[in-house]
């Protein structure tokens, strides 16, 4: 790993100022970034650790309608704190990797990284989360910009994420057995009769909302409607873990399972 300087701020303002240095980068839980550094695929000048910033920690319910998660909150914190208020998101967080990964990995890191097989992006899109940074708010629909690309500007920090709590929600993850990431993951959220679906691990353009499924299930919330869905639009990821056709099929199966589980 190349050498770097370290900044250990205790406030968002200090972190933002440390990030204004040329080549500075945020360090969250390090579970993506440290392997990248080991492989010398990144060469930051300064790593700015956000894990000791109190204002970026914690998980709270706001007005019974919204789960507010600090950008540096760990998967383990979300899994234990959201169990009652938002069980589908708690389940998602509690099934990322293994307990040691969940004790370090953070929500902000997962969203900023936007791995095409990551779980949180599917949830953020499905519930219409708002991603708060040190200088603006970004709607999930505008945030994800294809694999590993987001709307974040250089030096911008995800400080908080607000997840609206749906009336019913469910996450179905088909695990890739070696990495335990989602081979395909489907997050279903229902607000009244409106259904929203976020799909990860399937499309070559990264996480996306499946509009055909949303329309069909908002009109008829049944597994039959899910099974009758047209083929997914666009190019599917096609790799040694599964063909594009296989992934398109999984999307339908997982959506039907999510409907059954949320009914």
């Amino acid at each position: 790993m190349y050498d770097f300087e370290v900044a250990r701020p205790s406030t968002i303002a200090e972190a933002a100022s440390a990030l204004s240095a040329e080549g500075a980068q945020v360090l969250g839980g390090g579970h993506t970034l440290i392997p990248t550094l080991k492989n010398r695929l990144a060469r930051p000048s300064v790593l700015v650790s956000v894990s000791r910033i109190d204002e970026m920690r914690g998980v709270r319910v706001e007005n019974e309608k919204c789960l507010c998660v600090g950008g540096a909150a760990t998967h383990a914190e979300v899994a234990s704190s959201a169990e009652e208020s938002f069980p589908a998101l708690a389940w998602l967080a509690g099934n990322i990797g293994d307990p040691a990964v969940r004790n370090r990995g953070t929500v902000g890191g997962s969203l900023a990284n936007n791995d095409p097989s990551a779980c949180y992006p599917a949830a953020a899109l499905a519930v219409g989360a708002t991603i708060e940074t040190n200088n603006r708010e970004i709607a999930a629909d505008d945030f994800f910009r294809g694999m590993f690309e987001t709307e974040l500007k250089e030096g911008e920090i995800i400080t908080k994420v607000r997840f609206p709590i749906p009336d019913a929600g469910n996450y179905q993850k088909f695990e890739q057995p070696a990495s335990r990431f989602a081979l395909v993951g489907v997050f279903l959220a229902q607000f009244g009769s409106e259904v929203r679906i976020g799909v990860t691990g399937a499309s070559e353009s990264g996480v996306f909302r499946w509009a055909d499924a949303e329309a069909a299930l908002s009109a008829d919330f049944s597994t039959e409607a899910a099974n009758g869905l047209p083929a997914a639009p666009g190019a599917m990821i096609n790799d040694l873990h599964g063909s594009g056709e296989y992934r398109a099929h999984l999307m339908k199966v997982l959506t039907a399972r999510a409907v059954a589980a949320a009914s």
Partner: protein
Amino acid sequence: MEFVELIVNGRTLSGEVEGRKLLSEFLREDLRCTGTHIGCDTSQCGACVVHVGGKAVKSCTMFAWEADGMEVVTIEGMADEDSLGDIQQAFQDNHALQCGFCTPGMVMSAAALLDENPDPSDAEIRDYLEGNLCRCTGYQNIVKAIRSVAEQRESAAAA
């Protein structure tokens, strides 16, 4: 260089570490606590699991300075003066190790599990050990050993 002060297995230590020094390297190279093993160095295998602030973490995927001010417990901290800790003893009694490479991480994960859930089912044990790989035992005896610790602790508490 980063200044750090940590409590490792009950001993307070302070000094300077390079920013890029991993916690696993700090424990093994600087403190000579070589019980913490490095298997994959990519957070897959769990051989390097230690506790930081009471939580199981993979020490190969954390910098030493990130543990500043925290309590760190490694496998060396699991034994009493000259006898094995109860989890270590149960691993021996139940033949839960063969080559022993995975064992330090297994014991540290088992300890974290039993702190969170003193009476885990076999399925809960297997689920918790998802990030600890063993290439020898087939896991059966590891699960048995952890169950036996839960039972021993329960009967000791009842007595």
